C-alpha cells in the first residue's frame, strides 16, 4: 500500500525523479503565480474595483490582521513569507475535492521542506530585525544553562511541525482509501468533506505556529537582559 504520493513516478533521470509530489507542487505554484499575476495586472484604487481584486484584498488584509494579533506589529515584513505559506497549504489541502488529486502535503518530503523553511525563517527575521548579537543572546535567557533546551526546542518543534501536517493529511487520504473498499458509496463523501475542514484548519495552524515561533523569538530578542541583584 502506498502511504504517500512519492510512489508515483512520472519521469526518471539518474537520481532525479519527477514524482507526483513534485509535479503537483509545481502545478499549485503555477496556479498561485498565474492567478495573482492576472488579478494584480490592473489594480485600481477608486470606488469601483473588480470582484477578484476584492477577494485578494480580503485575503491579504485578513492574513495581515492575524499576524498583527499574534504580536508582530510590522506585519508587512512577514506577510510575504507567512502569507504564501498559508496560501500554498490552503490551496493544496482544498483541492482534495477533485477526484484523483493527492495533496503534496500528504508526503513527508513537502512538509519537512516547509518546516525547514520555518526553521530558517525564525533566525532570519530576528537577525534582520534585532541584529545577530541580540538574537544569540535570546538563547541564554533567562539563565545560561537554558542553552541546550532552547536548541533542543528549535529542532523538536520543527519535527513536530512537519510530522503534524504530514500525519493529518496522510490520515485523511488513507482513511478515504480504506473506506472506499469497505463502504463504497456515501460514507467516503462525508469523510472527504470532513477532510476539507481538517485541511483548512491544518493550513491555518501551520502558518499561525510559524507566526508564533517568529513572534516568540522576537519577544525574547527584544526584552532586555534581567540582571539579578
Amino acid at each position, binding site marked *: *500500500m502506498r*502511504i504517500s504520493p512519492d510512489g508515483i513516478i512520472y519521469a526518471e533521470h539518474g537520481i532525479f525523479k519527477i514524482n507526483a509530489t513534485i509535479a503537483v507542487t509545481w502545478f499549485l505554484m503555477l496556479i498561485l503565480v498565474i492567478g495573482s499575476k492576472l488579478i494584480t495586472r490592473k489594480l485600481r484604487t477608486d470606488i469601483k474595483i473588480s470582484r477578484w481584486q476584492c477577494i485578494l484584498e480580503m485575503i491579504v488584509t485578513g492574513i495581515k490582521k*492575524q499576524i498583527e*494579533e*499574534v504580536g508582530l506589529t510590522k506585519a508587512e515584513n512577514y506577510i510575504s513569507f507567512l502569507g504564501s505559506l498559508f496560501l500554498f497549504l490552503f490551496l493544496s489541502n482544498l483541492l482534495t475535492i477533485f477526484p484523483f488529486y493527492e495533496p503534496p502535503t500528504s508526503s513527508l518530503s513537502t512538509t519537512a521542506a516547509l518546516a525547514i523553511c520555518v526553521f530558517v525563517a525564525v533566525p532570519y527575521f530576528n537577525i534582520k530585525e534585532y541584529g545577530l548579537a541580540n538574537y544569540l543572546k535570546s538563547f541564554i535567557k533567562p539563565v545560561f544553562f537554558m542553552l541546550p533546551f532552547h536548541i533542543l526546542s528549535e529542532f523538536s518543534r520543527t519535527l*513536530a511541525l512537519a*510530522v*503534524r501536517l*504530514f*500525519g*493529518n493529511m*496522510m*490520515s485523511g487520504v*488513507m482513511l478515504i482509501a480504506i473506506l472506499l473498499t469497505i463502504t463504497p458509496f456515501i460514507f467516503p463523501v462525508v469523510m472527504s468533506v470532513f477532510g476539507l475542514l481538517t485541511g483548512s*484548519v491544518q493550513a*491555518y*495552524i501551520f502558518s*499561525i*505556529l510559524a507566526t*508564533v515561533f517568529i513572534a516568540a523569538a522576537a519577544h525574547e530578542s527584544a526584552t532586555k537582559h534581567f540582571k539579578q541583584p
Partner: protein
Amino acid sequence: MDNITFIGAISVFSAAICMAIGSVGPALGEGRAVASALSSMAQQPDTASSITRTLFVGLAMIESMAIYCFVVSMILIFANPFWNYVISKATGG
C-alpha cells in the same frame, strides 16, 4: 513460531495498542481545552477571536501527540523496518 510470524504478530498488536492508548490522553486533553474555551467565550464574548486562535494553537500541540502515535503505528504496519530486515535476511541467505 518462526521469526516472520512473530514479528508480524507483534507489530500488528503493538500498532493497535499504540493507537488505542495514544488516542485516549489527547482526547481527554482536547475535551478539557475545548470545554474551558467555550465557557470563557460564554463569559466574555468580546475575546472570542483571541481565545479561538490560542485554542487552535493549543489543540494543535495536544493533537500532535496523537499524530505521533498514528505515524508510529502506520510505520509499524506499512513500513516496518524489522520486517523488511528479516525478509531481506531470509531471501538473501
